[in-house]
């Protein structure tokens, strides 16, 4: 007898979190026992403006279905102005991805402070739900990096 495999789609999410706010926020949501899906892979960066557009594309290449960048709220950057630059860069990059016809829901920027554990969990739940609905990343995938 052949058993048909029904695979539930579990998206891979890459979250770039700034060391000073969002990474601490993620920590807080953990110590508060708040649930967020396990398919969110957090990458800690010193500041949201450390994130080069190449990082986002590279995440998609290596199999991410959605990429989210979390940083300190504008005005609260540990390095004073980093997130202001990140904001401009990401706006332009996301607009370009949209221009190339890549689903704009796949990329997002959220400002999460170290005190906002609940916001972090809620954001991740919402983002994972959006990506699950959207399905697999097909338009920015690299078949060479696909797991067999």
């Amino acid at each position, binding site marked *: 007898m052949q058993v048909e495999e029904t695979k539930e789609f579990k998206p891979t999410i890459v979250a770039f979190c700034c060391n000073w706010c969002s990474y601490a926020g993620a920590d807080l949501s953990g110590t508060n026992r708040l649930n967020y899906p396990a398919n969110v892979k957090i990458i800690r960066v010193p500041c949201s403006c450390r994130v080069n557009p190449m990082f986002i*594309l590279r995440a998609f290449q290596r199999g991410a279905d959605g990429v989210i960048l979390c940083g300190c709220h504008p005005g609260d950057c540990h390095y004073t102005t980093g997130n202001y630059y990140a904001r401009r860069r990401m706006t332009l990059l996301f607009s370009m991805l949209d221009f190339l016809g890549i689903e704009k829901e796949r990329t997002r920027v959220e400002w999460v402070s170290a005190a906002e554990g609940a916001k972090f969990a809620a954001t991740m739940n919402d983002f994972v739900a959006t990506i699950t609905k959207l399905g697999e990343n097909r338009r920015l995938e690299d078949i060479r990096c696909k797991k067999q």
Partner: protein
Amino acid sequence: MQEAMIKRAKELLAEGTVNRVMGWQAGEFAYDITPTVFSSADELDKAFVYNDFCSANVSKYMIKESRKEGKILCFLKPCDSYSFNQLLAEHRIWRDNVYIIGIPSYGKVDVNKVRAKGVTGITGIHTDGPNVVVETIYGSETMVKMDVMEDRCLCCKSKKHMVYDELLGEEGEVLQSNRFEQVEALENMTPEERYEFWRSELSKCIRCNACRNVCPACTCENCVFDNPASGVANKAPSSDFEENMFHIIRAFHVAGRCTDCGECSRVCPQNIPLHLLNRKFIKDINELYGTYQAGEDKDARGPLTNFTVDDCEPSIVHHRRG
């Protein structure tokens, strides 16, 4: 124009103001004009040309040339002068070593459009009022210049020189241009249509890197695409991801510094409309952060090296259009 330029160049050489002249000469064929450095009056007489095929932007050559000994004379068209000024703003050119003569440009001719009219064996070209006369080995052909002009010249943004030491001809004006029309048309498509459009265009890419090499804004000594560890250093198209990545990153690296000279599309051997990617960034910057023309003011701060406290959030992308 060509005679006036040669005459002035010879004078400056004789005076000793400059010791080299940056100009153009015919390549293998009369229409593939190549930028060249001339160092004597004889060479100028022999090979210097300036005609409607001279569309190459010579600003980028000034980075290396201005570091050599002695001054170099450089002829700049209005659009080249924007690139030159942007390079000055980035401290890439030694201004003291360059003598600039601004020359007017009334639009350059696209040889592909001439060929499309069934003209072959081209040996030369000259302007005659609103027409161009293309000389061929079979005789000469007259055609309306507007019909064979390069697309980028049809939506010219400015006839004004941003930087010069002296001008040959008249000072031009900044024009009202409709250069964003094509970008708007693409924006009004559905994401699926846009994806199809860009797949069909970018999949033609052969990764020759000509767009990067010619770009006057791409002047890094060590390019990210030459890094073997980058994963995008392949000199062959190996996956559609790589094509997307290369073109997104290439356009992003010049965002806010691109003067929209259109050289990337001109040199593309596959005729990919690469300038549309750059124009999209320019259009976004204009709409979101205020009108900015790179190369216009050499003391202005670029839009990506600047910010305001109340910039829009990146989620604006989700709200704009469909």
